[in-house]
């Protein structure tokens, strides 16, 4: 399910830009930071890899079809230093994620703000 709350969206992205200096090995300009989206879905896999960790998230679209999103985060060096391991996320975990999507509309993007549906933050960019 894609959430369409503009207020929600704006707030989370303001917060995320204030608190992060992404450890990316490349520019993130290919992602559309002007039109972020929020995704609520179920973790298929947390890929604890380089050059980036990925959250693979199954999301139900407007038509009730499941779409699998590949969401790029920072890197294992920073994430591990912050106290996260490959086991911190498990398949089936539900997450609400603010995403800067690919400009093409393909189901990929850069995650900026991750939290559980109850609002508890899951922020690999900050110490756990």
């Amino acid at each position, binding site marked *: 399910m894609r959430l369409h709350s503009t207020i929600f969206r704006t707030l989370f992205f303001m917060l995320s830009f204030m608190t992060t*200096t*992404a*450890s*990316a*090995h*490349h*520019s993130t*300009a*290919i992602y*559309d930071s002007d039109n972020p989206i929020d995704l609520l879905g179920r973790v*298929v896999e947390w*890929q604890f*890899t*380089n*050059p*980036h960790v*990925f959250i*693979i998230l199954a999301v139900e679209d407007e038509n009730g079809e499941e779409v*699998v999103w*590949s969401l*790029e985060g920072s*890197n*294992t*060096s920073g994430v*591990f*230093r912050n106290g996260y391991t490959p086991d911190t996320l498990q398949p089936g975990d539900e997450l609400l994620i603010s995403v800067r999507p*690919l*400009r*093409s*509309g*393909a*189901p*990929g993007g850069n995650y900026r703000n991750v939290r559980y549906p109850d609002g508890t933050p899951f922020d690999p960019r900050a110490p756990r």
Partner: protein
Amino acid sequence: MNSLIKLFTLTSISLLAASCASTGVQYPDWSGQWTRIGSLNWEPEGYAVAGEPPLTPEYQAKREEFQRLRDLGVLVGDPPATCLPPGMPRVLTMSFPFEMIVTPNTSYMLTDWDSAVRRIFTDGRDWPAYMLPEFNGYSIGEWHDENGDGVYDMLSIETRSIKGPRSFDSTAVVLHENNETVVFEEIRRLDDGSLENTITTIDDALTGPWTVQRQYRHTPFSEDVIWVEYVCAENNRHIQLGDEWYFLNKEEGTLDPTRVGQPRLIPDTE
């Protein structure tokens, strides 16, 4: 460009003469972990002092074209996006922590970015007749005891024979494709907690030398220091095919478009 290189080389030689006047100077202990202070790119801290790299009109135009393409979703002007090494001088931004191992003949800069080794030869050698170009180049260094306390506290380095393509950082500023870059460094131990690297780049994409500084914070050696392997090919999703860029969708087995109007590539498995 040759006159600029000579000027910097002469400066290095005079500094060397000053340091060699003393004998029995000890090599410093720079062990432990060093992490960058500041952002991933040279800006804003570096630009605040040095200004932007003084690009020639040709390379300024190239930068603007790259930025236009990026706004469309094309990841140009950023070679590490395809897992090429950052090379010199970009590696010195130290996106990831590094370690310095000092020996009399060679100092080693072990960077977590690409799990790479950079060798800085301090054995007094001259430039080899031929140097195979490498992304980190070929580095010759000299130790100096600037405060005269009997312990070396500054390492000056000259690096040549640097392979490309390279960019200064991820802001679409690329170095000249002739790869005749020369980089001079002066790495100083400011205090127990920090190193400072003053980096001067001479390159034909620039109208003159560009000097920028970067500081690194020290964490003393201990069992709590974390080092993490970095293998870029493990899960890189950014694929370049000719002039086109794609996002590798490993889950679906496709190359997904990054810009509007670009087709999705689906392998023909029949």
